[in-house]
């Protein structure tokens, strides 16, 4: 169950290899967290998260899940939910960050990115939402991005796929709240394995900073969690700029 301070006992992580998800689980482990199911396509990546969380989570199990295989998703979630016995909270943090220039000429890559970041994630969310709706309570943490709210020439494929997920999650929030709380987390650039080797913008977040902001958002029932909070204002200003200027900005 969720306790008075918003902490879960049993948690599922879709995208268990995500460093941001691992940091959020670590932060939630301050509460009564007792069982965590990690789901992802690569065993080695999950293993890395498992090692990191060994100290903070009592029971942790890994389950294979490939969001690119859309039709297999409901079946892949089943054993994880069964093992948890009780599902209080879900983190959906799966995603890939493609090279935009490659994607410009590779239709298959475009399809794959949408399949993982948007389609697969939406399918998984649908299964989880159904469960939460039926059980009358729950907590859904969806890793979106500030990128979901702006369009940038240098990464519009990623931005567009995250935008789809972001809107889908907000729709779910309208459907599920207040019995189930939905938290859409929109961080700026986060330094993780996924972003390794890329040119960094001037302002960079750590996964732990995103986790702290997420916990604060959970405590105050915030639906959209901007990390850092002023990013919301930044996006509002950007949206006022004329397109010819916006597309030349180094964001």
């Amino acid at each position, binding site marked *: *169950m969720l306790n008075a*301070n918003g902490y879960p006992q049993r948690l599922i992580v879709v995208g268990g290899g995500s460093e941001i998800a691992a940091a959020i689980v670590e932060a939630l482990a301050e509460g009564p967290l007792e069982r965590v199911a990690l789901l992802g396509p690569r065993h080695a990546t999950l293993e890395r998260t498992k090692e990191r969380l060994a100290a903070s989570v009592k029971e942790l199990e890994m389950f294979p899940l490939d969001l690119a295989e859309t039709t297999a998703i409901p079946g892949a979630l089943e054993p994880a939910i069964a093992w948890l016995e009780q599902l209080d909270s879900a983190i959906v943090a799966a995603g890939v960050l493609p090279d935009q220039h490659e994607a410009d000429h590779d239709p298959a890559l475009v399809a794959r990115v949408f399949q993982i970041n948007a389609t697969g994630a939406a399918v998984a969310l649908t299964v989880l939402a159904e469960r939460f709706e039926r059980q*009358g309570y729950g907590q859904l943490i969806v890793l979106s991005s500030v990128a979901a709210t702006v369009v940038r020439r240098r990464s519009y494929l990623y931005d567009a796929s995250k935008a789809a997920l972001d809107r889908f999650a907000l729709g779910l929030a309208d459907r599920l709240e207040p019995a189930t709380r939905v938290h859409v987390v929109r961080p700026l650039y986060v330094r993780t394995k996924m972003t390794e080797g890329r040119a960094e913008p001037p302002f960079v977040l750590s996964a732990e900073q995103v986790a702290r902001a997420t916990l604060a958002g959970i405590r105050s029932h915030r639906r959209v969690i901007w990390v850092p909070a002023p990013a919301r204002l930044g996006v509002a200003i950007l949206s006022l700029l004329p397109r010819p200027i916006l597309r030349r900005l180094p964001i």
Partner: protein
Amino acid sequence: MSPELADAVTLLTGWGGTPSSAAHLRHAITRAVVEDALSQPGPRPIIARGLGRSYGDAAQAAGGLVLDTTALRQPLELDRERGVVRVGAGVSLQELTRAVLPHGWFLPVTPGTTHVTIAGAIAANVHGKNHHRDGAFGRWVRRFVLATPSGVVEVEPGSDLFRATVGGMGLTGVILEAEIQLIPVETRFVLDREIATRSLEETLEALRHDTEVRYAVAWLDATASGTRLGRGLVSLADHAPRAALPERTASDPLTLPRERTLAAPPFAPTGLLSRPTIRTFNTAWYELGKRRPERALVDLRSYFYPLDRVRRWNRLYGPRGFLQYQVVVPDDATNAIRTILEALVHHGHPSFLSVLKRFGPGDDGFLSFPMAGWTLALDLPARRPGLESLLERLDNLVSDVGGRIYLAKDSRLRPRTFEHMYPELARFQAVREAVGARGVIASDLSRRLHLD
């Protein structure tokens, strides 16, 4: 349309406003509704709910069926000679008081609000300012009628089902009616002696004199620190005899005047009850109390239920809600009380309302909260950074000294700590098993504590 489909899905919370969950809410307008729900297939689990004054998640069952039992009321039967009353489970203590006080009878044990049902008072085995002398509510229950999944039974003190149900948080069945022994009073007043203390030692010392009076309790200024830590106002009181009344009221000593209440605003901002406002209130209350005359004749309502004057006062805590942290520690563990008060001040989690009291010996309820020692109750704004881990540490401290947390207030205790605090849990579960309650009757609280 089947009755299940007619149930409205409703979001429910305890008095603290957190956590919440949605369930089918059904009004038990007759006993048959309760019996049918327990015996026929339908949404599960099932839990009874009265006036929703449990602070945490005791009277909600996510995705299941919540039976509102406030309509379970039959004509009240009062034996005016012996002071025994037979009363429907959904009758509130307020209604019961109104009915029996004119005949010179009063509640044997009363919590800090009258807005609880008889069934709720039994299920939480509530206590009052007279626990050191009169025990908890369960001691005054002569019998009750309980609907369980395996049928309706009449339950008497001493039986295992009685011991599991008194303090059992509604997890053995649904109480339908009860017979309660009342206490005689001559007037609607208490004679209250209020002593302002300057430190925790003084407060504890004043409370040790509770054997001289029926009611003894201390309000603490839980924002005071250093040498002032634990200072407060100790109240020692007894029912006022008729002879103590001024002539004006002596002719009609038992009629309660019309009650005037005020509603709290529906939406309070999150920070309304925060560190500065809580500190200001507590300091002012203490200073005012110090200046009041030491002895006073106080109306029962003002004495026992000052907060009932503000309807829905829980809304003042804003959308994040609050939690009440109530612990009991053995007589010799006053250091734990000190540590708790210090920790909350030090970590910036001030308690708006803090109450300290000495308990007499515990009772035989398997999950009954009271035990001989000191009980401290604190109202804390919930969902604040750092609160979760701080209270977890304090839980462990309480558990280590042999104390426990009150389930009627709880919304965050962890299963293992709970098991340690309530050593008769296995017997409780055996009774639930025997009446077929497991798998049928459960609440968010019981699921959180893994009792199902």
